[in-house]
């Protein structure tokens, strides 16, 4: 059962972004900030750290494709950005795996890369005309704060989950 836990949790986070978050945290509450939940991104970065770059990229691209299909009419943007972010954030060192601080720093870096990439792609396509400074203040900083706080809550459960997964795999090998 535990093998299906990761996809299930990812799907759950994916649904929360579009439904609960949008209902309870109304965009009209904040005038000068655009709060975009990136819960799946946090989970994908942690997957890349604990499970290696290949799993990270696969999980990232799959979730991105789901995102493209459901929420946007444009295909490819999220699939590519999530896959790429998962790849460059796959620091699989032991020091990173045991330290929450490193994980938070990597997640914040990944959020920056990801937000900047999606902004860049939308800018190139012509969907948005806001300049970089505006993007930085209105989107990136709020996104760092929001998702950074959420990441703090997700770190421990995910570490436990990945430890369980490893134990399960050890058992399978015997």
């Amino acid at each position, binding site marked *: 059962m535990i093998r299906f836990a990761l996809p299930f949790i990812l799907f759950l986070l994916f*649904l929360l972004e579009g439904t609960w978050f949008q*209902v309870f945290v109304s965009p009209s509450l904040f005038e000068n900030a655009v709060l975009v939940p990136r819960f799946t991104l946090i989970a994908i970065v942690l997957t890349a750290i604990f499970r290696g770059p290949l799993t990270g990229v696969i999980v990232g691209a799959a979730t991105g494709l789901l995102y493209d299909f459901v929420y946007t009419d444009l*295909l490819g943007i999220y699939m590519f950005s999530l896959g790429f972010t998962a790849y460059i954030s796959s620091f699989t060192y032991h020091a990173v795996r045991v330290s929450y601080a490193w994980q938070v720093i990597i997640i914040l870096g990944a959020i920056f890369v990801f937000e900047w990439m999606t902004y860049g792609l939308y800018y190139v396509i012509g969907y948005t005309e806001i300049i970089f400074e505006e993007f930085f203040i209105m989107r990136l900083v709020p996104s760092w704060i929001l998702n950074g706080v959420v990441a703090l809550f997700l770190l421990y459960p995910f570490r436990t989950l990945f430890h369980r997964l490893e134990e399960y795999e050890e058992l399978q090998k015997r």
Partner: protein
Amino acid sequence: MPHFFSNKRLIILMVSIIVLVALIGFSMRDREAATWPERFIRDTVGVAQSVFSQPAHFAAGFFGDIRDLLNVYEENKQLKAQLDEYASLSAELDSVKQENETLKEMIDAEESLTDYVMRTALVIHRAPDQWTETIGINKGENDGVKKDMAVVTAEGLIGKVETTSAFTSTVQLLSDGNRSNRVSAMVSTEEDPVYAFIEGWDEEREGLMLRKIESHADIEAGQKVITSGLGGVFPRGLSIGEIVEVEADEYGLTYNALVKPSADFYNIEQVNVIERTSETLDQTLTEEPEEEEEEEPVELNEEDIGGVS
């Protein structure tokens, strides 16, 4: 990053960039319908989203109710004052309706641009990355929802159906910044109605832009903006908003106006999808030429007025 960018990985990166460009190019075209994997995934995810969003709306509604309870007294006073006005208005409406009926009978008009059927749908998601302003609803092709139909809440127009799948569809809100997001609107003035287009959203002033108003038109703040029904898909007379500001456009040839939308684009729980029953722009235009058989019937369709809905 110990494994970063060896030759093999560079090739993979290049290939995926090419795939990305190809995918974007494919989906940037004005697609008539979504591809089958998209529709399948949307339907499947839509089921889960419905399950999730209903309790959320319920809980949000509960807190909203508590807030409402606190200012019930004030509201009641206001409503009582409005009630008298309402009685006289509804009497007037009745007589106007009757008059309208008889007038319609006199000119044998069976259909008008104001006729429509309405389907109620629940909002199941909203695009979380606010680059595009879209929401998902739980009615799709199987319920008769088609592309470009008007979507309204109780307060007024909020957008149009962008894509459909079997059980869900995506609604593009009026506040979406996409250039193809246009609605043919009219302003009811004391003289003739003035026709113009709702085009885009003003981020700074938080309002819709009504563009291409003729310069001799008599437009001022406070006037109501409604759909004109000339675009081909929307019925006439759906409320859009109220004019706040009027200014000359950048070339000085026409006027632009800032419109405060009457509907709330956030906190949407339930919407109505509207299907216009009258097919053509004006019934008389297609019927008249029947007597002179050589002439082709004049049909005004979307292209004649620039594919606006």
